[in-house]
């Protein structure tokens, strides 16, 4: 009894007050200096889809209830802690309350009612967000592979494995990404050839996993006011070494502009026949011969964007794949997009000499057939 630690002057109370005051001053200063921005940082971005608006409404309800409960209970903790400190020298026992049945009932029943309410409002929103329009205006299949997005535009009512009308292979940039009509409903299929990825656009407040062996689908209705805007998207499920570079863009076009773009793509696709899948392409190249061109692949990038070699002579591509466990290759495409050399892909770290050529003089494109959007360059043959 004599060694009671409570008889010492209570430095704890001083610390408690300092911490409480520091926190209040800090938060107060932040709010005064930067109020609206601080408040906005506790909310998701301004939604750009009909589904996103529904989710934001639900978020706001949950946030309001959560904030009320948080301040109530946290306030209760802080107040109790500051109010009921033991005075130095006070050895009397406080009243020994063992419990209170009515109190237990109240703080069981009231939270139960609150969570049932939250459950029902989120269920309603869920039905809204998950609803599929009977006649979507557009049907697109987003394909996510390590570490690249591509977007296949499908005919109306087509199943997920239907032959696409045309495919956008570049995930970002003015010629790439997912281009959609503003104010209209797009039905998306999601498909992955390798591991699990996730389709995530922060401004849509939405993500959905892209799972190999499964076709996930959802509706996306861009706001009519979005026309002309571009939204940043990103893979949200860990998919390997290149996870962080798996970016894509969503372009919202006014319906008339979208139609022009869409018709242009259709004409383009009709003009050039669909390229054969890479497995069926003629493997070219013989044993390594001629001058060697050094090319390094690292972090899903080539180290060079320009190569050059002599016309009508064989040459060797000394290809150093430094990405452990990731397959890369080098293909050479002529101006019309036809494959004139098809290197076989292999996982790094490893080095391979591709024997290529001879090629006629001209400008060619070289790329990694697995990551064409991230790994490409120009081969000048003269």
């Amino acid at each position, binding site marked *: 009894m004599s060694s009671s630690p409570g008889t010492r002057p209570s430095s704890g109370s001083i*610390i408690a007050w300092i911490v409480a005051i520091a926190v209040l001053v800090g938060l107060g200063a932040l709010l005064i200096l930067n109020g609206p921005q601080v408040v906005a940082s506790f909310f998701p971005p301004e939604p750009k889809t009909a589904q996103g608006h529904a989710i934001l409404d639900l978020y706001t309800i949950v946030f309001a209830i959560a904030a009320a409960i948080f301040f109530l209970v946290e306030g209760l903790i802080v107040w109790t802690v500051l109010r009921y400190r033991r005075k130095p020298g006070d050895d009397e026992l*406080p009243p020994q309350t063992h419990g*209170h049945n009515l109190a237990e009932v109240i703080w069981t029943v009231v939270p139960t009612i609150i969570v*049932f309410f939250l459950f029902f409002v989120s269920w309603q929103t869920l039905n809204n967000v998950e609803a599929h329009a009977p006649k979507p205006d557009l049907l697109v299949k987003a394909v996510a592979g390590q570490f690249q997005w591509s977007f296949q535009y499908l005919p109306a009512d087509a199943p997920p494995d239907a032959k696409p009308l045309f495919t956008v292979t570049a995930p970002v940039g003015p010629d790439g990404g997912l281009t959609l009509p503003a104010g209209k409903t797009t039905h998306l299929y999601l498909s992955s050839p390798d591991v*699990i990825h996730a389709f995530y656009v922060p401004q849509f407040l939405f993500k959905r996993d892209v799972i190999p*062996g499964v076709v996930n689908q959802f509706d996306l209705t861009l706001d009519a006011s979005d026309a002309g805007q571009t939204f940043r998207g990103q893979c949200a499920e860990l998919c390997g070494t290149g996870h962080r570079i798996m970016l894509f863009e969503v372009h919202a076009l006014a319906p008339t502009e979208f139609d022009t773009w869409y018709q242009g793509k259709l004409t383009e696709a009709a003009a050039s026949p669909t390229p054969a899948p890479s497995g069926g392409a003629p493997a070219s190249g013989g044993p390594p011969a001629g001058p060697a061109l050094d090319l390094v692949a690292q972090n899903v990038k080539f180290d060079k964007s320009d190569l050059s070699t002599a016309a009508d002579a064989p040459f060797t591509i000394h290809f150093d794949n430094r990405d452990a466990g990731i397959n890369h290759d080098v293909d050479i495409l002529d101006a019309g997009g036809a494959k004139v050399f098809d290197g076989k892909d292999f996982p790094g770290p490893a080095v391979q000499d591709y024997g290529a050529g001879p090629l006629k003089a001209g400008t060619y494109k070289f790329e990694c057939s697995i990551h064409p959007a991230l790994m490409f360059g120009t081969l000048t043959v003269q």
Partner: protein
Amino acid sequence: MATTALTPAASAYRSGLYEWLTTTDHKKIGILYVVNSFIFFFLGGILALGIRTELAIPGVQFVDGEVYNQLFTMHGTTMIFLFIIPMLVGFGNYVVPLQIGAPDMAFPRINALSFWMLPLGGILLFLGFITGGAASAGWTSYAPLSEDRTLASVGSGQDLWIMGLTLIGTSSILGGINFLVTIFKMRAPGLTLFRMPILVWTVLVTSILQVLATPVLTSALIMLFIDRNYGGHFFDPATGGTAILWQNIFWFYSHPAVYIMVLPAMGMISEILPVFSRKPLFGYKAFVFATAGIGALGFSVWAHHMFTTGLVFLPFFSLMTFLIAVPTGVKMFNWIFTLWRGKLTFSTPLLFAVGFLSMFLLGGINGAFSAAVPVDFALQDTYWVVAHLHYVLFGGSVFGVFAGVYYWFPKMTGRMLDEGLGKLQFVMIFIGFNLTFFPMHQLGLAGMPRRIADYASNAGWNDLNLAATIGGFLIAASMIPFLWNVFISRRNGKIAGDDPWQANTLEWATSSPPPPYNFDHLPEIRSERPLFDLRHRGTGH
């Protein structure tokens, strides 16, 4: 007070390394658990500093791709399987037999076996770093990323991860059985179930979870091992398997594992709050039922980790997840009303316990956002989830662990930890923790995904990431006063005596540290506070 004047002959403890390696004494094994867990806590912390250093500013400065993925995979795995779970088992090991008046655990040699599997499992996990790369598919190791070498750069590290976790899981199952038998069969006369300290109750429920859920994880691990090495097709859709099956099995263990990681910490808090407010725990029975309720509901919410897969029945798992807030709320109110009208002594254990209350509250409330399925569509796999899980596991469990260290260190060593250094550590870790993890809520809302080594400098995430990194280093710095405190107090700390805190439970009725057989004499047990009864001769009851 307690009758422990007769200290047994010191020769009962054989001295030296040999004794520590071969001991079957639950107290020594408990201390081994705690020390081993702290070693892995510091290793996991170093990995976390690697993550935070890379993310401090945009651009890739130190680690990228494969190495970065190894950092967060091993950080998560280490903190969960080699720090929090074994740390709480360690406290259980030390305290539970004492609190129920038993001389040891029911199976002392199995107890030693369960402990020694842990450092072995840990070594296997970390061996990956020198055999070509540790596991890098995340602590969740989702298939098919974790399946074979062409999909991800996972060398032998992933196989070592599987083997290490299988050992750790086996340790957990054995430990769970040992606790159950000990608690059911070895309680002192008079210690009925409803007089057991709350820590014993939480260890009881945790043990049930371990025994029921861990074998499920083990089966998943073995299937993954077969897939990787012997051409099995459980999880690889390319060969007829089901990718999502891994997630279902993995989370069927790993969600209850969250309660394995937090229930005993709740138990420790429930021991500390009454002692330092000089009142009994408010609503003892409600607390027991809430613990059991969390344990039971814990088995029906695993798929809330999978809302965005589109492959689970969302309303059921949403409702169950919301409902688990109810027993958790009951606990929170009971804790607060234990303090209410008490006479609070702010020693370091109570500081950490109140830290637990105020931070775990936020970790519980921000969990409700993810239970609202459509909101989870926005938040899943962003930094919001990282914030949430750290408010539960760091703001909750880790604060609980430090409360426990400051509370039971006198019992374990016979000496008090220094209060000044303890308070300094608390202030540093409390500020560091909030500076690290609070901004992650905002980062997640703004759309920053987890598990990326870099982000665009124009994404608007720079300031918050820098704040989080500074906070991370402050947490690391808070370990300096802690380690110094342990180092000096172990030899020169104030002599604790049997019962320095005027506590309630039986471990304080014996000497500090207790003799190998624990008790010379037990007080009569007529309530959940036998020492209080002894001290006050039944007044106030």
